[in-house]
């Protein structure tokens, strides 16, 4: 089975100047992939792969082609391949992105495209990192509805305005692109990180939730929101376009107005 069969390139209309007569243009591109296999060597190396790709292909398709046709040992995570599951965040040309949402034609294909694992988390193999520290922080903010009232007999209703209040932070897919782009997290991995704060924000500002105070107390920690230096790396990295830095600022405000 070839890569084309498994992942058929979609026949979308492209303007004539990109390709002839609706054909999908193809081009050669080099992927420079960061390789690490602790069973072989403690040192990470770069491997170059030259592949012929199409205008509709994403970095993930190039990785598939490499894994399926050239070197089966190249390891990376992916699941949905459509920007929904958050498993394939990686550092592409030095920026955290989802491989499945990054079109090759949007990158500079004249130079090798570097693909590295996200920074700040322990690398397990090639592009796969240990996500456990990231999820631990996520669990610590209690990302679930806590309601102290009586169990309702039907759904918990909420006004459109109340729902709008935290709409932005409901979009998170836990890809870790934000946390692993944060220089404060890189230092020692102690900071809760933007993703945990985004997911706390989602419940703190939910009118149906009663445990906002507990979450604010958790994030008032010395490794909590006050370690944020408003670098905006997280906002820039988020593939879902969440205003991450703003969400962190709102949590800071909420802690302040509760304490003072």
């Amino acid at each position, binding site marked *: 089975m070839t890569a084309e069969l498994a992942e058929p390139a979609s026949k979308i209309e492209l303007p004539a100047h990109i390709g002839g007569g609706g054909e999908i243009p193809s081009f050669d591109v080099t992927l420079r992939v960061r390789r690490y296999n602790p069973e072989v060597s403690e040192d990470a190396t770069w491997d170059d792969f030259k592949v012929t790709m199409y205008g509709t292909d994403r970095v993930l398709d190039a990785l598939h082609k490499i894994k399926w046709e050239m070197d089966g040992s190249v390891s990376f995570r992916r699941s949905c391949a459509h920007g929904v599951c958050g498993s394939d965040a990686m550092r592409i040309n030095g920026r955290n992105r989802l491989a499945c949402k990054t079109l090759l034609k949007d990158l500079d294909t004249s130079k090798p495209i570097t693909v590295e694992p996200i920074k700040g988390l*322990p690398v397990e193999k090639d592009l796969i990192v*240990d996500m*456990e*520290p990231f999820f*631990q922080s996520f*669990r*610590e*903010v*209690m990302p679930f509805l*806590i309601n*102290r009232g009586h169990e309702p007999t039907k759904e918990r209703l909420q006004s459109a305005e109340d729902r709008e209040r935290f709409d932005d932070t409901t979009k998170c897919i836990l890809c870790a692109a934000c946390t692993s782009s944060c*220089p*404060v997290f890189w*230092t*020692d*991995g*102690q900071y809760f990180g933007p993703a945990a704060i985004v997911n706390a924000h989602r419940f703190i500002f939910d009118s149906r939730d009663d*445990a906002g105070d*507990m979450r604010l107390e*958790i994030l*008032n*920690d*010395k*490794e*909590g929101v*006050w*370690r944020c*230096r408003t670098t905006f790396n997280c906002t820039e990295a988020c593939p879902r376009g969440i205003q991450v830095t703003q969400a962190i600022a709102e949590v*800071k405000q909420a*802690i*302040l107005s509760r*304490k003072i």
Partner: protein
Amino acid sequence: MSATEIQSPRSAKAPAAKVGSNRIAPQYRRNGSSKGNFEMLAWLFMRLSGVVLVVLIFGHLFVNLLVGEGIHAIDFGFVAGKWADPFWQIWDLAMLWLAMLHGTNGVRTIINDYAEKDATRLWLKIVLYAATTVIIILGTLVIFTFDPCPVVNGVQLPGGFCPAP
């Protein structure tokens, strides 16, 4: 356990913390939660002192460099004259303390962000706090004990601002 006693997984008592912490690499483990609002107050202090310092420093520069003869008026006598006035004593004291604490907290933050080992952090902070303490105490003493006409061993030191003895 009533519903109000839900424990966050990070509290040491919660069994989930133990399960979780075995699975995460040791260098990522946080040692318990920190109590108190120190980081919040430090954050707030940086914002408030920053605003006040803008007023104090620009006021200082304006009075010293632009008013009257401006920069040409600055000499020992000018400074002595200012510190004879309690208003400027308080102004300069506030500027000294706020600037030192603001700067120290800023450097503390940088140390926290960039030093990777706890021992390095500790030593850098000891040096930082020692330097801050010395400068604040010395500066405060200068502002309040400043004497424009010091007399040493019965002899007036040269200067020419003081009434002849």
